[in-house]
C-alpha cells in the first residue's frame, strides 16, 4: 500500500503569468475559482483564509512570494481535527510558455505525523470526549455540593 506524500500537477494556461499570478494571489482572484470567499495578506508570514458555503474555512499562511513566479502557502489537512498541528505546503510555480503560462502546483506533507501520533495510534490511553465529559461531571458534582 503506497500513499502519496506529494501531489504534483502541471497545466498549460492560455493566459500570461501576470494574469495567472493575480488569480492565485489576490482575494478577488482566489474567490473567483478556489474559495467562495477569500482574504489574503500577500507577504511571507501573512495570513490568508478561504471559506466555502457550507461553513468550511481554511486558514492559510503565506510562505513564499516571488512575483510573478513562485507563490507558496501552508494550510491544514482537511479531515483532521482543528487543533491538529499538521499542515501541508502548497507551492505554485509559474513559467512563461509562449503567450501563456506553464503552471505547476506541488502540495507536500501528507505523510507527516506529529511527534506522538504513532504512539497515540497504538496506546491504550483514551481521552477526548469521554474524558472531557468525565471532567464536566466531576466539576458539576463538586459545584453541587
Amino acid at each position, binding site marked *: *500500500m503506497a*500513499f*502519496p*506524500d506529494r*501531489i504534483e*500537477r502541471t*497545466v498549460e*494556461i*492560455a*493566459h500570461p503569468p501576470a*494574469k*495567472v499570478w493575480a*488569480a*492565485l494571489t489576490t482575494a478577488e*482572484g482566489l474567490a*473567483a*475559482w*478556489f474559495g467562495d470567499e477569500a482574504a489574503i495578506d500577500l507577504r511571507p508570514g501573512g495570513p490568508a483564509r478561504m471559506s466555502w458555503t457550507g461553513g468550511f474555512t481554511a486558514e492559510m499562511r503565506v510562505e513564499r512570494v516571488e512575483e510573478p513566479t513562485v507563490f507558496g502557502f501552508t494550510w491544514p*489537512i*482537511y*479531515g*483532521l*481535527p482543528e487543533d*491538529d498541528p*499538521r499542515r501541508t505546503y502548497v507551492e505554485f510555480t509559474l513559467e512563461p510558455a509562449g503567450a501563456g503560462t506553464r*503552471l505547476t*502546483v506541488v*502540495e507536500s506533507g*501528507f*505523510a*507527516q*505525523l506529529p511527534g506522538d*501520533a*504513532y504512539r*497515540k*495510534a*497504538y*496506546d*491504550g490511553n*483514551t481521552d*477526548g*470526549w*469521554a474524558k472531557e465529559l468525565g471532567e464536566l461531571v466531576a466539576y458539576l458534582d463538586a459545584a453541587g455540593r
Partner: protein
Amino acid sequence: MPPDAEAVAEQVFAALADPTRRAILAALASGGPATATDLAGRLPITRQAIAKHLGLLAGAGLVTAERGERRRVRYRLRSAPMQVAQQFLAALARDWDTRLGALADHLDRDA
C-alpha cells in the same frame, strides 16, 4: 511515511471494509461506550458475532475495553488510528485537477 503509520491505516481500512464492523463503530461513535450485549440489542447481529468483531477491532486499536466483569466490559471508540488514516484520505481528496480546471475556466471567462 513510516511503515508503522501505513500499518495503522491499513487496519483502519480493513476494519471499515466490513459492514458489521462499520455498524459497531458507528454505534460507538454516536452512542458512546457500550457492552457487546448493548450492541446486540441495537444491531441486527448476535452477541457472539459482535464479540468476535469487537475482538478484531480491539486488536486493531480502534476500540478499547474498559475494565469490568466479563460480559459487562464496555468498549469505547479510539480515534487516534482514524486520524492516521485520515491523512491518507486527505491526499486523495485534494482534487487539484478540478481546482486547476476551475482556474483555467475563470481566466477564460475573464479574458
